[in-house]
């Protein structure tokens, strides 16, 4: 099937854009499934997304057409319009374009759809990256296999009865840890972390940025 010469030109000359879109989509999908690092997965997601955008933009292309901005002879405020206005006292209204002229412009609709998709794409990429940072904060890694190991061991620990460490508020946890272990305990306490310390603490942190968050814990305990 694939040694057929006409099929080769059919796919790789006339429809190269579409074939490359499929290839990029496969690369992105493969990265999302098989890559180990979460950041790599996200880059794969972005590649997947741009592949879709490539598909849409390729659809909007017309042979021999120009960009979807009116040429000056069709432009309501273009040069020809001004000349006409100067000649006649009645300002000339822009005309509805004929079908033959419509074929001279690229299709603007896919461009609009994809333009917003790109900006929303970067916003969602930022959201996904923030979740990655949060995972790193809780588990110390963004590698999938290490993450699975840690989750499994945590599951074991919680099922064997010692889940008390997990959901305790920070103020109580902190009281137990001596000050000198402050730096080392982040390694130890991998699992005991998923508590939220509320927006008030966050606000206090942003107000007094350089100070450690000791005062809040002091007044809480």
């Amino acid at each position, binding site marked *: 099937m694939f040694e057929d010469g006409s099929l080769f030109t*059919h*796919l790789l000359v*006339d*429809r190269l854009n*579409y074939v490359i879109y*499929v290839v990029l989509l*496969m690369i992105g*999908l*493969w990265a999302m*499934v*098989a890559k180990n690092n979460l950041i790599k997965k996200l880059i794969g997601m972005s590649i997947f997304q741009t592949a879709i955008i490539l598909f849409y933009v390729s*659809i*909007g292309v*017309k*042979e*021999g*057409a120009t960009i*979807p*901005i*009116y040429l000056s002879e069709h*432009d309501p*405020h*273009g040069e020809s319009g001004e000349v006409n206005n100067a000649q006649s006292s009645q300002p000339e*209204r*822009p005309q*509805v*374009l*004929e079908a033959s*002229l419509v074929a001279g*412009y690229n*299709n*603007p*609709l*896919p*461009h*609009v759809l994809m*333009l*917003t998709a790109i*900006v*929303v794409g*970067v*916003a969602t990429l*930022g*959201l996904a990256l*923030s*979740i990655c*940072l*949060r995972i790193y904060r809780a588990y*110390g890694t963004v590698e999938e296999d290490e993450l699975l190991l840690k989750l499994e061991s945590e599951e074991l620990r919680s099922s064997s009865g010692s889940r008390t460490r997990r959901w305790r508020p920070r103020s109580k946890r902190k009281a137990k840890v001596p000050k000198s272990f402050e*730096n080392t305990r*982040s390694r130890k306490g991998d699992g005991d*972390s*998923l*508590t*939220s*310390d509320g*927006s008030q603490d*966050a606000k206090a*942190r942003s107000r007094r940025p*350089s100070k450690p968050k000791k005062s809040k814990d002091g007044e809480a305990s």
Partner: protein
Amino acid sequence: MKRASFILVLFIGLLLIWAVKDFPEWGDPQSPASSSPVSSHFIAKTGVDTEVPNMVTAVLADYRGFDTMLETVVVFIAGLAVLAILLGGPKRRTRDRDFIVEFEPDLIVTNTVRLIVPVIQIFALYVLAHGHVSPGGGFQGGVAMGASFILIALSWDLKTALSRFSIERCFTVAGLGILIYAGIGLASMFFGGEFLDYAHLAKILPISPEMARYHAMLGVEIGVGFTVTAIMFALYASLSTDGRMRDGL
């Protein structure tokens, strides 16, 4: 596992290529997408309806105004969510970073940036305001404006950038952008049209309904620009500092 995923992906790719075989040729003017009545309507009537030469801007801000407004809301919510995810939560790891950040901002870099940041911002405003007749508009201008603040944060430090555009102000501006957009929509509703039907704004403006749509589109783009500027900078600020808003990249 890896091999299985590879075979799966290959299978999906082959299916898609099989579908590609039946596509119209690339750039075929007779293809269904290019000859559809919707896009032909946009190309033929945009000049008459709105007097905007750039069809993409007209379709973006006028014909598909709802879509753009809610996309802006999505950007805003994503910014809020990033902040919410990173502010709370477990204790941060002690740093064994692979990067070394110098605390003194470099003299040459800061002076160059001092020169080019105003140019970038003027260009961003130009792109925003000139989006009707050339490529550009609220999204592009907003991102360029946000990038200028990111540049300040990169060349000095985040504190300098935040003293100019604090994170609270970011979200105020972002919310204001959506309010401008929705406000223009509500105003046109107030004057007897439907939501985001700008032609009815001609009742209070001394211009024709077409030019009312033209100028309302500019207002809408300004709203989009506000939101995108603020959220792009807020994204950078929260991600580079892991939510602490100090000593970032």
